[in-house]
């Protein structure tokens, strides 16, 4: 495996290897000295063409804990604003001799494009409305930590699935592991995912019944007024998660959110801060999963 461009491209075995390795890295993160020399001498460039604080911070910390040299390259300071093509940008970066390129880009498929054109390992940190594979891996890791496995779980994904790369990667991953996926949201924001064993609910109360896991998605404010939904108020009323709705799910259901949250729009504060929410644990697990991915890609084994 040279690159991680998407969950779609991974086999179940590969995903299991990543999750198992992440579990070892989670142990490392519990130690006093959280840094290991595993990737000493390797260079990583974080190439972020879209603003991001969480994902970039998480990758950067993961990289540092693996002892890599980290180079951050973000749009406002780059030559991209001077009109350089992505191809030329990556060729320039490759000339520095980097081993990993972590990329976030607003164009779906940009990581695939780069992966085809460089020798370095490419890790997709979110491309357009396509995929955000490390988020799905950390979500799966977090669910397994709480529930033991993914098989047979009722997992509700709620919100703007159409524009959510997090939702897409989760759908691909969960469907490979036999979870019952329910997509909940307004019809304007639910794409045709019928090939991935999903059930669609426009009625949130119905979709939450007996759910083991509720994954809330961030609603992007700019979607309102573009005809996807009329107002955030109407949205919250129909597809927001509050305490009353949370009670429709199983008693021990967990609530997840990739962050950053819009409190009062897709999730109420009491739910976000409740004992059922594992939102902060997701952040910790993100580190372990990203360390695992980088470590495994550096091995580039041929037998997986």
């Amino acid at each position, binding site marked *: 495996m040279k690159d991680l461009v998407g969950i779609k491209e991974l086999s179940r075995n590969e995903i299991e290897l990543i999750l198992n*390795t992440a579990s070892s890295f989670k142990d490392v993160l519990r130690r006093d*000295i959280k840094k*290991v020399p*595993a*990737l000493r001498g*390797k260079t990583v460039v974080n190439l972020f063409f879209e603003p991001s604080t969480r994902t970039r911070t998480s990758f950067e910390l993961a990289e540092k804990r693996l002892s890599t040299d980290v180079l951050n390259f973000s749009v406002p300071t780059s030559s991209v604003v001077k009109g350089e093509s992505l191809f030329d940008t990556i060729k320039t970066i490759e000339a520095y001799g980097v081993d990993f390129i972590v990329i976030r880009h607003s164009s779906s498929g940009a990581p695939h494009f780069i992966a085809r054109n460089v020798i370095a390992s490419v890790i997709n940190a979110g491309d357009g409305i396509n995929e955000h594979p490390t988020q799905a891996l950390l979500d799966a890791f977090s669910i397994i930590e709480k529930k033991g496995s993914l098989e047979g779980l009722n997992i509700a994904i709620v919100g703007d699935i159409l524009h959510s790369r997090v939702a897409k990667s989760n759908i691909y991953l969960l469907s490979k592991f036999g979870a019952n996926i329910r997509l909940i949201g307004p019809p304007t924001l639910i794409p045709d995912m019928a090939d991935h064993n999903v059930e669609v609910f426009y009625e949130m109360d119905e979709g939450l019944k007996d759910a083991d896991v509720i994954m809330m998605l961030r609603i992007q404010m700019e979607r309102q007024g573009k005809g996807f939904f009329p107002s955030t108020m109407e949205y919250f009323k129909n597809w927001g998660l509050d305490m009353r709705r949370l009670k429709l799910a199983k008693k021990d259901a967990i609530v997840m959110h990739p962050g950053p949250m819009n409190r009062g729009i897709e999730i109420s504060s009491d739910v976000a801060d409740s004992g059922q929410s594992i939102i902060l644990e997701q952040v910790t697990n993100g580190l372990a999963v990203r360390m695992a991915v980088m470590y495994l890609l550096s091995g580039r*084994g041929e*037998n997986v």
Partner: protein
Amino acid sequence: MVMAKELLNKKDMERIISRIAHEIIEKNKGTENLCVVGIQRGGVHLAKRLANRIKDIENVDIAVGSLDISLYRDDIGIRKEQPVVRKTEIPCDITDKKIVLVDDVLFTGRSIRAAMDALMDFGRPAQIQLAVLIDRGHKELPIRADYVGKNIPTSMSESIEVQLEEEGLEDRVLLQT
């Protein structure tokens, strides 16, 4: 064609474990502050056997840990196979402890170097000693074992296979040429 020659059998291995257990107790004048740590994978089972044998002799429980050295190796990127990170369990605070590292085969010494680095990240042990079942020579680093089961001079093209009951095999050591 690969030829396998049996170097040690079950009985031989039992005797070796027994002798090394005695040597450890003798050298350390008892079992105080002692902790046995096996290197994944082969060393882990041997560490447990040693601890059990020490208990038979001295009637004290000593801490046994396992150590995965993948993250400390110096050959990432030149290995062909996908790295697998196994469990690391250090059962106690190792600072000021006498650690006996246990491995099945001592070869280049690079694994031991990695194991010492890994161990250091958990604390500052008073001493690190090394016990190995087989010392096959060809060291590339200035590392030697404190306790050796059997010295077996080998050529680079040969390989040593340690088979253990814990892995579902018969206890024995094979030399493959």
